[in-house]
């Protein structure tokens, strides 16, 4: 059901944009300030990556997997040329850790840095 509609060019009202920007920044500022006041104390760290993340059918994080398996779930899959890479998102449900899979664009800064590091590591 392809349909071509001649669209009006939607212009954002500059006044509205400026007003919105102001409120946006105010909210951001307020958020930061409140945190500074609230959390004087150092937060305790609870950031260990659970080991069971790497269990399951996928191969290890260096991409040197079982032969014949495609490396579609790691960051180093340039060969595939796909625009997205699969990552695991770590979340907490109460005190329990959980992982969910997601796709991130290959050109995201989040992926880029990791990839560069990996490449560097590999070279070593």
């Amino acid at each position: 059901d392809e349909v071509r509609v001649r669209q009006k060019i939607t212009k954002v009202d500059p006044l509205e944009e400026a007003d919105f920007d102001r409120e946006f920044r105010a909210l951001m500022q307020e958020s930061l300030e409140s945190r500074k006041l609230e959390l004087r104390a150092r937060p305790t760290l609870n950031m260990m990556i659970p080991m069971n993340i790497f269990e399951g059918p996928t191969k290890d994080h260096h991409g040197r997997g079982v032969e014949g398996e495609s490396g579609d779930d790691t960051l180093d899959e340039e060969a595939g040329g796909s625009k997205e890479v699969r990552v695991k998102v770590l979340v907490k449900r109460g005190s329990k850790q959980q992982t969910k899979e997601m796709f991130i664009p290959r050109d995201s800064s989040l992926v880029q840095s990791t990839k560069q590091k990996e490449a560097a590591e590999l070279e070593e």
Partner: protein
Amino acid sequence: EETGDDDSYEFGKGDFTEHACRYCGVQNPACVVRCNVPSCRKWFCNSRGSTSGSHIVNHLVRAKHKEVCLHKDSPLGETILECYNCGCRNVFLLGFISAKAESVVVLLCREPCLNVNALKDMNWDLSQWCPLIDDRCFLQWLVKVPSEQEQLRARQISAQQINKVEELWKSNPDATLEDLEKPGVDDEPQPVVLKYEDAYQYQNVFAPLIKLEADYDKMMKESQSKDNLTIRWDIGLNKKRIAYFVFPKEDNELRLVPGDELRLRYSGDAAHPAWQSVGHVVKLTAQEEVALELRASQGVPVDVNHGFSVDFVWKSTSFDRMQGAMKTFAVDETSVSGYIYHHLLGHEVEVQMVRNALPRRFGAPGLPELNASQVFAVKSVLQKPISLIQGPPGTGKTVTSAAIVYHMAKQGQGQVLVCAPSNVAVDQLAEKISATGLKVVRLCAKSREAVSSPVEHLTLHYQVRHLDTSEKSELHKLQQLKDEQGELSSSDEKKYKALKRATEREISQSADVICCTCVGAGDPRLANFRFRQVLIDESTQSTEPECLIPLVLGVKQVVLVGDHCQLGPVIMCKKAARAGLAQSLFERLVLLGVKPIRLQVQYRMHPSLSEFPSNSFYEGTLQNGVTINERQSTGIDFPWPVPNRPMFFYVQMGQEEISASGTSYLNRTEAANVEKIVTTFLKSGVIPSQIGVITPYEGQRAYIVNYMSRNGALRQQLYKEIEVASVDSFQGREKDYIILSCVRSNEHQGIGFLNDPRRLNVALTRARYGIVILGNPKVLSKQPLWNGLLTHYKEHECLVEGPLNNLKQSMVQFQKPKKIYN
């Protein structure tokens, strides 16, 4: 108009899903998040529309809310976004970081967690913190931006509207955008426009108009209670009780139609307890008697005949279905194709053709040969997703429609849905389509199942009763039991209903074509049906929302048939009519530049009769498919002033009067002359069913009926068989001879109803063999169109006065027309 469904179903399948963006209605789970503030919990999408921030970011900023939750069907599932380390839920502070080496990411707050040095020592890369909200939009890989198509079909909300509704939510969290537009009680409603931003705006305009009309209809019908009625009791073929009574019709607009629901009451006496029962009108007899089939047969005081009361039971069904269709149109993307969606709203869409193989011949079996303009119509319609066919009087609209439906059905696109606003038109079409050999199911409202129909064998209820296979014998047994006893035990009733539904479904599904009224297309029995191809006949007589009901069942190709030069839909509420509810979708599409394909050959009128309508209403394009010889009234000795020109304008100078009810007009002189003309026709060998008397006023209609039966020179019965009716009720029909009584005759007032050119067109185009118009030229000539008509008659020496047996050309002077008619 159709009312009454015993089963209650929900209308409008396209209910707003809970997770639809509260700004724009986008409901793709991958594109929406929920504001997690307990007092709010509204859903918003991640599209920008015409605002600087995406809808969700806009909301958070304007409402100063800071927490969100993802949709359960999104990749992360139902998840409140929070800092992995400290649990902070302020989305303005959150961003993703990734593990140094692993393909693992977490959300981390900017303050303070991102600044904790100890983290650097772990496996996390803090150099690339990726904020959740980027460029005033959520990260697009976390919350998708709706596709361009999705955005195009969403509500086009402006920044101003957003700010207004956010303001409104502060005092009323459940307010909707519609509340912003709601007119006050005394405000004039928003008028209809040519183009709509989106289906929500469309709904905002039409919903209040439908509501106004519904309220008016309800008020009018419920005020129709009548007391002291005399009942004649009878039993129908289906063994149900039938009450016959005369429903005194006062001089206003309400006319009972078969299918209407009435409540009959008896207040009780020494020998009878108080009693009441609801029933459906199954018939209106020629003697203006109403036949009411009662729902329950028990306890009916059949030995009493006097002192009954009757009330109208108003049903909102048809209005509910219109509202439901508009809602579906807005929120359900599959309701109509994208092309049709944008086209109906008046958006500029690139022309699309339907890629279906064309048949070699455009006629259809069982139908008369098509003429050139009909072939052209069929051919063009089959290639276009939206087409309009204009069928002037007598041009073979029904045959053309049937041929189109035949070819559509043969294209293998699934079942074709065929609708019209009136039951009469649906029956006619169903009959013609069935003649082509297609399998047709005519779906009737439950309340009309007892109303006799010329296509009974095609109706679903008939087919269910007569589907005589062994598996269905259970249903038949139960049906018989129900017919005999009037009701079933509750378990049997359950079984009966289930069996009946299954059978209905089976029969409907095996049909090539389903025919029903526009309102009938909203019947729950069609709820799960999809129709890609829809044809609506008489579409110029239905309101837009009514037309929408058959369309929102998945249409990809639509054909609207009608004639915007004839009468449009009847709107009772003046306020709604003024705001434009009386304009049909067909007309709006014409105004938007869709060119109707006009059928050009008329097969009804004597060529002399079609000349003026053709020139005045159809730019002279109407050709005659009948010859003068074929319309010669052989053996009929009638004093036409010009032989071979069976028409005249009979000059009447008698005064108009206000009728007894005070709301209508009558004209005694015209009525007396109508009787003389009728008598002359009858004496010359014309039979009553060939004659139609048309008058725009109910006062005159009643007066003529009365006058003829009392003063008619021939047998009373002959006059009783002559149809005397309003212009409006003659639309779509024809008679051999038409007598038109104009009534209005005054010095200073206007000509009321006669002012509408479309009404004049209908009045002039009903006759096949001859027409006589009675009126006052001095009064009528002030109106330009009537002036033109009078001049036409005068030029052809058909403007006459004097006694019928000695008609002379009239020298009456016309007045200058006042306004230019366009």
